[in-house]
């Protein structure tokens, strides 16, 4: 019922395009022109390098969707409380509409990152680095966008319903901070295996890496010899997070407590 309007709202969000796409191009350009000097001039090494960039940068890109969702919920808490009582809108209807909008937006952003990664890295290394399974990348992106949405909704609704909204800015940025911690963590350092499997953030970047390059997923992106991760377990982990948070979200949404936006003032 409300899906097309939420999608329109999210697609027209300039901040999302600025931070989620344009700023990520900055990272991609650094990857192409600055950090690529130590990459061996071999097609396999170049493809692995491009895949790791696509996985990590797209994860960062998705985390900006979470910030947008956070603020949409925060500013709309009174509207939602009213709509659930006095319009046909139901919590599950709103949840599914927002989930759909976030998934579509994530797929669009991923398609842009995929095209840019392919074009820039192929040009840089002088080989055709066409993605191994581009459709799988986009399908994974839709799931990842849905995960970012359910995570953001859970965090914000816990704050809105049970705590003051003074910390809304901090809470809204938690998915982004976690994405950077796990994204860079997997890129450069050895994270304990159980954390890599349990973390939905490493699951997203790892699965996107595998869908681009078609390689086994290394525990550390820059050190393929450090061991590999099982993609099925990573996918299950991501879906489990998605489902658990979705159940939590619909419960929290039913109890949404309207908050005055002035309450979030810091000074």
């Amino acid at each position, binding site marked *: 019922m*409300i899906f097309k309007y939420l999608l329109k709202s999210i697609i027209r969000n300039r901040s999302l395009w600025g931070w989620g796409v344009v700023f990520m191009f900055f990272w991609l350009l650094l990857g192409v022109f600055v950090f690529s000097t130590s990459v061996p001039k071999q097609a396999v090494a170049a493809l692995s390098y491009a895949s790791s960039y696509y996985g990590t940068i797209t994860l960062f890109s998705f985390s900006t969707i979470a910030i947008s969702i956070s603020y949409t919920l925060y500013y709309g808490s009174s509207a939602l409380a009213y709509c659930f009582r006095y319009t*046909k809108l139901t919590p599950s209807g709103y949840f599914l509409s927002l989930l759909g909008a976030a998934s579509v937006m994530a797929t669009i952003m991923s398609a842009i990152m995929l095209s840019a990664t392919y074009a820039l890295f192929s040009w840089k290394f002088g080989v055709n680095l066409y993605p191994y399974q581009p459709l799988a990348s986009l399908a994974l992106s839709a799931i990842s966008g849905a995960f970012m949405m359910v995570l953001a909704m859970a965090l914000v609704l816990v704050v809105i319903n049970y705590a003051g909204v003074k910390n809304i800015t901090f809470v809204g940025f938690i998915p982004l901070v976690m994405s950077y911690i796990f994204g860079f963590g997997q890129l450069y350092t050895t994270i304990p295996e159980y954390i890599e499997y349990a973390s939905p953030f490493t699951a997203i970047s790892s699965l996107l890496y595998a869908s681009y390059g078609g390689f086994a997923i290394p525990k550390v992106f820059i050190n393929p010899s450090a061991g590999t991760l099982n993609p099925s377990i990573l996918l299950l982990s991501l879906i489990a997070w998605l489902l658990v948070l979705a159940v939590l979200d619909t419960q929290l949404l039913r109890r949404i407590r309207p908050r005055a936006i002035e309450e979030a003032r810091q000074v």
Partner: protein
Amino acid sequence: MVKCMLEANQLRVVYGSNIVLKDVNLVVNGEKVVLVGPNGSGKSTLFRAILGLAPVASGSIKVFDKSLSNMKNVIEVSTNIAEVYRIANLKVADIVNIYCELKGIGNAQSFQMMKEFELEDTLGRKLYELSTGQQKMVCNILAMNQKAKLLLLDEPFDNVDQSRRRRFIELLKQSNAELLMSTHEFELLRLLPDWKLCFMLEGKLWGKFEVSQLERLYISRGRADNAMAVMETSMGVFSVTLDKGDVLVKTATNLSSLLEAVAE
């Protein structure tokens, strides 16, 4: 068969240590009621409580005989409170479309009203980009849908120009919906002679009186024997009386200036 459109019983709303509504009782059933009171008297909080937007500390609210806590998807209630229209960051035209869909009505009437109130140029802008008066009128129009049986209009004339005020009052008079409206402007009451009237001050509600009695309503200091209502306020105790008293209600521009005049 619905027994009562709106019923608030011993309603208390508290923000921190501030008691904003003090055991308010109100019934709206088969009538149009206007709440009159100065800024800060609790009028908007009463509306927000009915809409489920304010924390009810004690007491109860029933809309169409249903308790507020059990209220789901009751499309016959509408309001002009702007914050309920912030569901997405979209232009006014989209907001009109969304809320028409969510109310299960066509959008033609709303767009026609936008045209009649010369608000077509607002359709391509976002609510926060409008002037306060334009925003108020857009929200008034969003509230006025053909399925509404109970309209909750909070200060619908604030910052609205005279021409639009007149036209909107005519619309309210023609509406078949039951109505609870707040205002702090006494002059408007003369245009609504068949409405009921309640006074609101310091979180307490007194009434209902007849707006048609406005020519005969007086306010006096102290407790009068023939008082229709006794108002206990921080400025003292006042009585509402018929036909004789200290100050004729209709001579005042608002309730607080009236009480100040009586208290002097």
